[in-house]
């Protein structure tokens, strides 16, 4: 029994029952499939993180976002500038207690180099209802190229706990034609 020492002292020489052997092989092959699926998606799939990131400081990052906002603000909403930067440009999104700043307005089917960083604690970028979720760290400028494929109004919910105002930390993003 499993709670007493094996009855055959040389248990490692016992043959393995066929059913078990078959399952081990199937399970191992399935593991390989899952492993190579991730690599395959890097080659053939469209949803991959670039893993591009730079060290930054809150001041440096805030300044870049500020410059972008000064150049491309089109209106304001809830005291937050709505910024419409040109396609293919670098766009900046600040996470801070407890706000996403600014509101980005992007064009459908255009590429943007989106930079996100936090000015204080960790935050979670959760784009809804698309459901893209990223972890945002202070001190790291995370860069990814994103191409919105639908127009409309989207929300950025914070999904990493960031203190008592966490549930009020919600931002917006617009996608227009």
């Amino acid at each position, binding site marked *: *029994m*499993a709670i*007493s*020492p*094996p009855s*055959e*002292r040389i*248990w*490692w020489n*016992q043959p*393995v*029952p066929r*059913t*078990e052997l078959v*399952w*081990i092989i199937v*399970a*191992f092959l*399935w*593991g390989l499939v*899952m*492993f190579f699926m*991730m690599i395959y*998606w890097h080659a053939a*799939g*469209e*949803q991959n*993180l670039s*893993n591009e*990131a730079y060290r930054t400081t809150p001041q440096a990052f805030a300044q870049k976002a500020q410059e972008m906002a000064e150049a491309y603000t089109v209106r304001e*909403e809830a005291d937050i500038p709505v910024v419409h930067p040109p396609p293919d440009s670098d766009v900046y999104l600040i996470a801070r207690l407890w*706000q996403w700043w600014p509101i980005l307005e992007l064009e459908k089917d255009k590429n943007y180099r989106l930079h996100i960083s936090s000015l*204080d*604690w960790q935050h*979670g970028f*959760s784009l*809804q*209802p698309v*459901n*893209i979720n*990223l972890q*945002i*760290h*202070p*001190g*790291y*400028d995370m860069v*990814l190229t994103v*191409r919105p*494929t639908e127009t409309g109004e989207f929300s950025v*919910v*914070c*999904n990493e*706990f960031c203190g*008592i105002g*966490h*549930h*009020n930390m*919600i931002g*917006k993003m617009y996608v227009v034609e």
Partner: protein
Amino acid sequence: MTTQAEFRTCPTTGLQVHLSAERLIKANAVVAIVFLLIGGLFGLLVALTRWPAVHILPADWFYLALTAHGLDVLIVWIIFFEIAVLYFASAVLLNCRLATPRMGWLAFILMLVGAIIVNVAVLQGGSSVMFTSYVPMQAQPHFYLGIILFAVGALIGCFIFFGTLVIARAERTYEGSIPLVTFGALTAAIIAIFTIASGAIILIPTLLWSLGYVNYIDPLMYKTVWWAMGHSSQQINVSAHVAIWYAIAAMVLGAKPLSEKVSRTAFLFYILFLQLASAHHLLVEPGLSSEWKIFNTSYALYLAVLGSLIHGMTVPGSIEAAQRRRGLTNGMFEWLRKAPWDNPAFSGMFLSLVMFGFLGGISGVVMGTEQLNLIMHNTLYVPGHFHATVVAGTTLAFMAITYLLLPLIFRRELILKGWAKAQPYVFGIGVAGISLFMMGAGTLGVSRRHWDITFADAALTFDYPAAAFLMMGLNGIFAILAAVGGVMFLAVAVGTVFFGRRIGDTEAVEIAAPGVAKTIASYGSEEEIKIPGTVVLVAVFFIAFVLYYFVNWKYLSDVWPLS
């Protein structure tokens, strides 16, 4: 030097039980259960708060309760119980005295004091940082100190376990190799050493930082090392509860592993590969390469997953073989239909096995896939997944073995037998519900650790789909069911400890299911027993796994292109 160790002879198994070991097992198990009660209560409050129509706690209390819930159940309950399991699997199963019982009490006191300090820190309100305590958010220094003390105690417990194995070997208290269950416990203890070392590496500097002696801790580095502890500790739980599955199958049904070699190798895979899995928690983090993420998140080539997949067949397979050996050979599933479903040790164990595999295992592998994590990270899918692993899997298995420890170690006859029979089902259904509905809400994008998904006080707002609200309501209802199951467990366990009829020193108790012979003929690897029922169950599982895996790639492909 040890004084003469005192033993009693167990009238049921004939094992020599070291009385000091027995006292330590009792103390650790009882404290574990008390913290399950406290932590479970916080869990219920959290679930009721997340039910938008009920929303019972104010925001600050919600985050406080969530921090306390995570710590008390994931860390305190589980690890106290695991220490009891380690002592049981070494001293009791090996017929041996426990190494240095005095140190065992020191370990116990350190853990208890640590747990109390953490709870005080959290309840004081200045440490609502969640059990993960990601920097730069800062808790009070005694929050970290409590966790460190607790870990030191647990580390001592592991060394006592190793010491006991050494003594048992030296004093020849058993013949041949250690039992499979002890081997599983050994796996857990080895992983625990790695885990606690990682914990020390990250928590000691964090404590110094909270005291002002260190001025910067890199948040990404913190997360990487923290999860080397956090994720490995989940593999401790898996090793421990798999060992318990084997133990219960053996004690109740006389089941013997189909192949010692295969089952032991599967445990070995845990030791060899799980350290990599810290990456599960870092898949959408900036600044880590995809090569690193893929290699680590898959434990090389899914080799630790392979270990679990093997146990997933060999545990039910060994049960089927034992049942067929008893003559339950009709059709595919007579062995399963006529299993002792009214024995809470067995039903708890089997539910734990099924739910851990189907709900926890599949969702874990899917969520731990590099790109798929994008559509799940930090949503409620994550707690949905781990309530299936650590509650339906580990906690339910621990509850199940408690039904055997009460008569064997506490020497008390169960009270409230009817409650005991129903308990695994009530708790199991409740936990299955919270797991599924949290996963469902997560798929709809609902954030974890979030007080208000209506965003009532926020400057901007967002409307989650109505289905998400429905899921949160159902989650609340099933949380109540799980809490009822938890209270039933406590009533039976604590009631039995204090009020159960004392079992006499020479009185044997009936642990095995009726009809299971006391001594089981030697069978297993050498004479192959056909296990067609298990093959069908495993096939169903595998198909579900493959389908669900690819469905999620389909979901991912609908998301905006990122590169």
